[in-house]
């Protein structure tokens, strides 16, 4: 406890306030997010000034001149802060400002509670092995989910007009109308017993039926089915991440000198990825980035191939997932640039490393080009992966429905599997796109690393 505790509180509440403000700005209005951010910032500054005042009044050097100056500045700052708070209260919604104001205090209370709970015997017994903790976490999550859904249901039935609390309502009505009046062409498709034969009817583009669309069709009024349908790519990508974690844990549980098949396979994959990435990045920087890039490859490959399993869907055929992946790569590449080159080095890199009069003259041209190139990288990464996987899915759906229409005169519950050759094409594209995403991310990292022999430097030396 003490000043170090307060510093940790500041850090945590900074993060929490930023994330909460972003979430509020996303799901409510930007103004509401601004209000939460302003409230949290006000509260944080207030806490900092209070801390300074108390330190100045009670510290070792409390009678000296600097301490007095510090105390007076802290008091003056608080005066200014109160005026600012009054201005904020007149401009922004007071309830949201209050919510933001509470965030640092909530962090303090939670951290103090954690300090009390963590050393207790019961907590240590709970966390000694992962399974009891997992069970408790699952029970807590299920309870929270039941409470919140029950709450939103009672709200929805109570007023009937609270569309804001139930974002799935319009989707549900759209689906009901689809379910009751299916298009005549899709009537045959629904009868098809072939797992790949039934393109799902929904608001978005037509896809193969997967577990979640089937469930949301079977339970059109259940809240959990709407939840699953709404967050379908998230659910699938979490499931895939969970499966990868399980496989990795099983493969590395008790490593042997003479490995079994699972350990052997995992070692082969890791070694191949390691060699591949270190070949590109070089032995100095390579090993540091192998875990991230290798995970990226395995994860994207699993997500791409997941759509080929009957009743499953590729999360990467949704633009949101690929944009998220590309943004991670983008932020990490900039972070690498800042860490390895320094802030000035990063600016120098963005300006095209001017070393001569011509180089300095070209800076106004090179800086925008480089900045736009940086911003174009994540867009091209995301669109490439999404377009390939989505296009491949669409191709399969198109040929599968063609196969159904070919036999539709016979009223049979089967179709000609015309999409069979394209499944092999899909295998190829899935692997290739995972590889391309990983390789391009590696190249983007390489361009940010201070290498003597990478492309930019070579060009610069040639030009001079």
């Amino acid at each position, binding site marked *: 406890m003490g000043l170090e505790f307060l510093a940790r509180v500041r850090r945590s509440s900074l993060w929490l306030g930023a994330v909460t403000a972003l979430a509020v700005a996303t799901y409510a209005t930007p103004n509401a997010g601004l209000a939460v951010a302003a409230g949290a910032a006000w509260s944080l500054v207030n806490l900092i000034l209070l801390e300074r005042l108390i330190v100045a009044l009670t510290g070792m050097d409390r009678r000296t001149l600097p301490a007095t100056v510090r105390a007076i500045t802290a008091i003056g700052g608080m005066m200014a802060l109160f005026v600012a708070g009054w201005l904020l209260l007149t401009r922004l919604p007071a309830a949201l400002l209050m919510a933001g104001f509470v965030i640092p205090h909530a962090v303090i209370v939670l951290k103090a509670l954690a300090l009390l709970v963590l050393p207790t015997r019961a907590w240590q017994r709970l966390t000694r092995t992962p399974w009891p903790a997992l069970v408790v976490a699952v029970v807590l999550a299920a309870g929270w989910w039941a409470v919140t859904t029950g709450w939103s249901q009672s709200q929805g039935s109570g007023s009937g007009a609270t569309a804001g609390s139930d974002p799935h309502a319009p989707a549900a009505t759209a689906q009901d109308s689809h379910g009751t009046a299916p298009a005549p062409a899709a009537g045959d498709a629904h009868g098809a017993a072939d797992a790949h034969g039934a393109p799902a009817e929904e608001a978005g*583009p037509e896809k193969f039926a997967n577990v979640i669309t089937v469930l949301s069709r079977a339970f059109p009024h259940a809240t959990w089915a709407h939840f699953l349908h709404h967050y379908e790519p998230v659910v699938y990508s979490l499931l895939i991440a969970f499966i990868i974690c399980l496989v990795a844990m099983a493969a590395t549980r008790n490593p042997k000198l003479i490995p079994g098949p699972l350990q052997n396979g995992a070692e082969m994959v890791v070694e191949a990825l390691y060699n591949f990435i270190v070949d*590109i990045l070089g032995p100095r920087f390579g090993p540091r980035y192998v875990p991230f890039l290798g995970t990226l490859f395995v994860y994207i490959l699993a997500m791409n191939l997941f759509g080929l399993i009957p009743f499953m869907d590729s999360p990467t055929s949704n633009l949101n997932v690929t944009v998220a992946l590309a943004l991670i790569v983008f932020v990490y590449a900039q972070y690498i640039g800042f860490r390895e080159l320094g802030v000035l080095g990063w600016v120098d890199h963005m300006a095209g490393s001017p070393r001569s009069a011509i180089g300095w003259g070209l800076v106004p041209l090179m800086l925008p080009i480089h900045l736009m190139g940086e911003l174009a990288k994540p867009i*091209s990464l995301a*669109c*490439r992966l*999404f*377009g*390939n996987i*989505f*296009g491949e899915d669409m191709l399969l759906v198109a040929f599968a429905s063609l196969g159904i229409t070919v036999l539709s005169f016979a009223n049979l519950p089967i179709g000609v599997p015309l999409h069979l050759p394209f499944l092999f094409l899909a295998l190829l594209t899935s692997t*290739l796109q995972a*590889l*391309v995403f990983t*390789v*391009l991310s590696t*190249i983007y990292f390489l361009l940010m690393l201070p290498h003597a022999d990478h492309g930019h430097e070579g060009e610069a030396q040639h030009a001079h």
Partner: protein
Amino acid sequence: MDFHAALGWGLPVGIGLAAIGSGIGLGGIGSGAMQAIGRQPEATAKIQLAMIIIAALAEALTIYAFVTMFLLKGQIAG
């Protein structure tokens, strides 16, 4: 020609043009890489890596056209 008709004509033709451009580019990349491998078979791995990267960059142009097509497809139905 109204907006919908223009989109109805323009989207398929545009995606075809983009595919032609990418196809020419991919052909050039492939032929260059094959010649390079033929001259220096020991550098196959490096050449293939560079080939895949450049092929992905060339192919991305068609994918952009494809994504644009899907973004604008909803406008045709009105």
